């Protein structure tokens, strides 16, 4: 995790006049696990395809090990890809699928079979050599796709929503396995997903994207605890986002009250977005609270309850393991490290209000298969 391997400088991409990537600057270090995270159509797949060589940026530079590779075709790059929906060769069996790249590279047969064997071992596919790929389950196809890419010993492995088509349980297993493989091989993984939990679990670095722009780059802890703007705060985890004003360094004012916080360096009385994570809020009796509100909804989520509390017309989401009956007047306490201050951005006011709360919010942001149709259609017309 030291030296820089790939760098995108001011990369833009437009399809039919529509800007899909807007001046991206991104630096990827050697042997890190980097995730491009964002909703569908945010440009994450396009970024991946630019690194893979399937697309040339409309403008900007792509550097690999310091060398400009804009015009290097995919087959000459030291990069391999695990495609969305696998893209295994249906006319070849498992062994020949995995051996494909080595055969193209004209590797001598003994070494070839040794390396394919290693991959079969690592991905737990021993015994499946002769199987037709269309007779495999989703998880097995996924393993073949990974083995087929890794057998070429690339410097970088690109993964395009590789777990999107798998069910939840299998997805969790594969997440762990991918992380294990990445650490074992010590190569760079660039992973595309719309699943924030997946991104937080696996990555060294998370790149949050929206509308063709990078919103934030940081460690999973950074992007969760210190979101740059309302979009990041909302997309990663759940957030209550409130309009506030910085009264002074370490002091923010919202709902007509002043709270101590850990942020400084804002202008005098600068309007800001205040992020408060639902799980950070402590529920106390009404007379002991910093703020008081009425419970309007409660949903059991397994580990905790999702409680919607109305504070003067603004509804917050609070996650607590204690049950609160609807209509109860409760108080909350906020510690300085529960309050995170963000500068105002184009996303201010768009997120963080739970007035239209529905119990399904999890499922909506976590749909099983979400292909980036708009991007793909434009791609294949070339």
């Amino acid at each position, binding site marked *: 995790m030291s030296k820089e391997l790939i760098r995108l400088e001011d990369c833009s991409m437009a399809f039919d006049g529509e800007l899909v990537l807007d001046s991206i600057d991104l630096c990827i270090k050697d042997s890190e696990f980097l995730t491009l995270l964002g909703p569908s159509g945010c440009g994450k797949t396009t970024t991946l395809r630019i690194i893979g060589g*399937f697309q040339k940026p409309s403008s900007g530079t792509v550097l690999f090990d310091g060398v400009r590779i804009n015009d290097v075709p995919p087959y000459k790059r030291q990069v391999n890809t695990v495609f969305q929906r696998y893209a295994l060769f249906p006319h070849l069996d498992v062994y020949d699928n995995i051996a494909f790249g080595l055969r193209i590279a004209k590797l001598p047969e003994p070494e070839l079979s040794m390396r394919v064997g290693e991959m079969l071992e690592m991905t737990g596919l021993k015994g499946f050599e002769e199987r037709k790929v269309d007779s495999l389950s989703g998880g097995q196809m996924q393993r073949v796709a990974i083995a087929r890419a890794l057998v070429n010993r690339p410097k970088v492995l690109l993964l395009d929503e590789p777990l999107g088509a798998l069910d939840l349980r299998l997805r969790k297993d594969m997440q762990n396995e991918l992380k294990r493989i990445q650490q074992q091989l010590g190569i760079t993984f660039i992973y595309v997903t719309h699943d924030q939990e997946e991104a937080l679990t696996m990555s060294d670095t998370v790149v949050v994207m929206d509308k063709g722009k990078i919103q934030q780059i940081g460690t999973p802890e950074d992007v969760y605890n210190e979101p740059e703007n309302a979009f990041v705060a909302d997309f990663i985890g759940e957030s209550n986002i409130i309009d506030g004003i910085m009264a002074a360094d370490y002091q923010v004012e919202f709902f007509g009250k002043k709270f101590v916080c850990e942020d400084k360096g804002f202008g005098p009385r600068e309007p800001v977005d205040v992020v408060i994570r639902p799980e950070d809020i402590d529920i106390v009796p009404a007379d002991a609270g910093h703020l008081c509100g009425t419970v309007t909804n409660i949903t059991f989520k397994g580990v905790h309850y999702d409680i919607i509390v109305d504070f003067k017309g603004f509804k917050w989401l609070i996650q607590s393991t204690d049950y609160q009956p609807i209509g109860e007047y409760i108080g909350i306490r906020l510690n300085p490290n529960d309050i995170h201050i963000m500068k105002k951005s184009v996303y201010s006011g768009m997120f963080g209000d739970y007035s239209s709360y529905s119990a399904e919010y999890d499922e909506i942001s976590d749909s099983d298969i979400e292909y980036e149709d708009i991007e793909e259609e434009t791609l294949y017309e070339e």
Partner: protein
Amino acid sequence: MKNRWLSGPYIVWMALFTVIPLIIILFFAFTDSINGGFTLKNITSIEAYLPILLRSVWLAALSALICLIIGYPVSWTIAQAKPGRQRFLYMLVMLPMSISFLLRTLAWVALLEDTGIINNILGSLGIDPLPLIRNNGAVILGMVYNYLPYMILPLYTVIMKIDYRLVEAAQDLGCSSGKVFLKVTLPLSVPGIVSGITMVFVPAVSTFYISQKLGSTGTVLIGDVIESQFKTAYNPNLGAALSLVLMVIVLICVSIMNRFTTDDESVATL
């Protein structure tokens, strides 16, 4: 069980116009033309027509191969085009088929004749007339021209269905565009190739009109012989026997072709 009735019309049709005629052909092939008794004479006398039979198979196979060579790039181009353009190109391929087969063949006669359009133009340029018609070349030209759409359509259908991601996967794994074709596109289009060759070969091997109009006495095909046995020589027994042998040859050829595809991807033929 009710669904069985849906195939009723087809079964009746097959029985009336395929099974019964086939039985009649079998009957004629093994009966004597004079006394109507059982005989193998018709079958054994086919030996005399063996060169013609072989020539028919040879010319039909050659036509199928030429159709493949011409048709594959065309199909590939159509399959790669944008949807709107695809429909237009597809229509262009289909368009000649909307004009009568006989008329199209006669048009070639008018073009290729010694006093035809091409030789007239050459003559006006001071070039001696070329022997463009009444040879194997003209027969093959006629076959290729008439049956090319039957090659292009199945190929186009198969190539269009190839997932573009597989092409990208091959590029990703080190294939230049030439290798992508050899390692991925071509193997995956084998079902279309098999079906196209079959659909060109089968009508071409039994054609008679093309060879009559564009060929000479030296390029008589088995289809011509069969036709003449029924119409001019009035020996339907020999004609039936020849048809039967031709059918067996075609079936053998088709089953050999189908070995190139696995069970689930073979395109139903015949």
